[in-house]
């Protein structure tokens, strides 16, 4: 079975990208299941079910970090895929902070970013983008040809080995190219013992444990304090 992670900032179009991809995979008679990780309520689970009629499992991370939660439950989602005899299991992450990435060594990792987010975005979002095998760039219809080309070149600057796929989430234009790379994703027998491409952030301060008050007196554990210095100029 192929196990594929899809990450990307909120509203970049992850869900629609996955829907267009799965439509094409289904046309090829492949069996696909989706694991959707989110923090709060999400209707995406039913969206996949209604539009694609495929098995879906939804996990809500609630008060823990959704990326930690995703890794903690990766094996469970993998087994869910196996129990449905899936050819491909796709995990859509919540993708909120840019500190880490869900990419696993030996599994295909897809990142979704959108053209409208600004041409500096590829430099800002870190491991989510730099560890991806495939970068799907959405919302190209909302910018000019030149802006698309500059954005793509900025993606390749931080991740020169990535395959880039331009995909219009509304029309699905571009999904054929995404399907082509996904068909080349490696097959694996188990996730147990496999390794993340990037470490997860430490999340062991008092706020992780429910603290809500502001101030040094309330802060315990793994705390990093800012070095408050005015920015001189240039990119930091």
């Amino acid at each position, binding site marked *: 079975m192929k196990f594929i992670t899809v990450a990307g900032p909120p509203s970049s179009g992850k869900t629609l990208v996955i829907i267009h991809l799965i439509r094409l995979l289904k046309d090829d008679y492949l069996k696909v299941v989706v694991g959707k990780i989110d923090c709060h309520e999400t209707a995406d689970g039913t969206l996949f079910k209604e539009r694609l009629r495929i098995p879906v499992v939804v996990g809500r991370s609630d008060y823990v970090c959704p990326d930690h939660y995703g890794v903690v439950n990766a094996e469970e989602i993998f087994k869910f895929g196996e129990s449905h005899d899936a050819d491909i299991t796709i995990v859509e992450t919540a993708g909120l902070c840019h500190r880490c990435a869900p990419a696993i060594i030996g599994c295909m990792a897809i990142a979704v970013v959108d053209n409208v987010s*600004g*041409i500096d975005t590829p430099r800002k979002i870190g491991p989510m983008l730099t560890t991806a095998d495939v970068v799907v760039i959405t919302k190209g219809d909302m910018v*000019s*040809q*030149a*802006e698309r080309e*500059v954005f*793509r070149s900025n993606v390749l600057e931080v991740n020169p080995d990535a395959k880039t796929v331009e995909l219009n989430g509304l029309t699905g234009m571009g999904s*054929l190219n995404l399907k082509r790379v996904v068909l080349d994703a490696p097959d694996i027998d188990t996730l147990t013992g496999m390794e993340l491409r990037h470490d997860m952030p430490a999340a062991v301060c008092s706020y992780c444990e429910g603290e809500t008050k502001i101030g040094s007196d309330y802060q315990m554990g793994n705390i990093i304090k800012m070095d408050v210095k005015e920015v001189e100029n240039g990119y930091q």
Partner: protein
Amino acid sequence: MDINEIKIVSGTDKNGNSESVEELTIRKGDILVLAGPTGSGKSLLLSDIEQLANGDSPSGRRVLVDNKVMDPFSMRITACLSQNMHFVMDLDVGSFIGLHAKSRKIETNNTVEKVLKQANDLAGEPLSADMHLASLSGGQSRALMISDAALISNAPVVLIDEIENAGINKTMGIQLLSTEGKMVLIATHDPTLMLTAQKRIIMKNGAMFRLIQSDDVERKHLKYFLEIDRVLEGFRHSLRHGNRLDEETLKRLVELEGANHEQ
């Protein structure tokens, strides 16, 4: 990469029947119009070209580049000028052109000037390097997009989706792309634009239905279309600047119609 031609080997229509146009070859500098009612399959054909379909898209078409199957990830084959007429970048025109040139590893010194000059030839209102992208009018943005696609973008095919009359010389814009060696594909419903191209492909029920070569009689029509366009453009200009229509303008229209009848 220098590409001389793209060949589309036909597939099937929405019902699985073979397309009546068996093969379509587009060469460097060609201008090809794509026409047909909504839902006739224009978008899928454009999508097949953009993604270099190899029998693996719903149409079953194959797109060959210089007679070979090409890896769709090795280069971007198409640049697209859509109906979008605004930039989202927060930059002045000069830096924007420079940035695009840099991303394509093109030497930037003369490029900015060249792109600006072309854009100015196309636009009704002048634009300069220090203007902010967000402050450009629709016509200025469109002129800059065309000039930039012709001179900086390296994609051999330019897809144009229903180019609007946004205060620019559209036939000149298309000519510019063609003389820069692009293969220009225009999806349009505008009769003038359709006749500007040497060839047009008509889509029907998802298939390439008919390939029509424009001839002398059609060219003669074009002359009148252009005249009608010019007259309309004159009225557009006049009305936009606060003038009223009167007996005088009506008389000129009637005379024009009479003159056309006599020719």
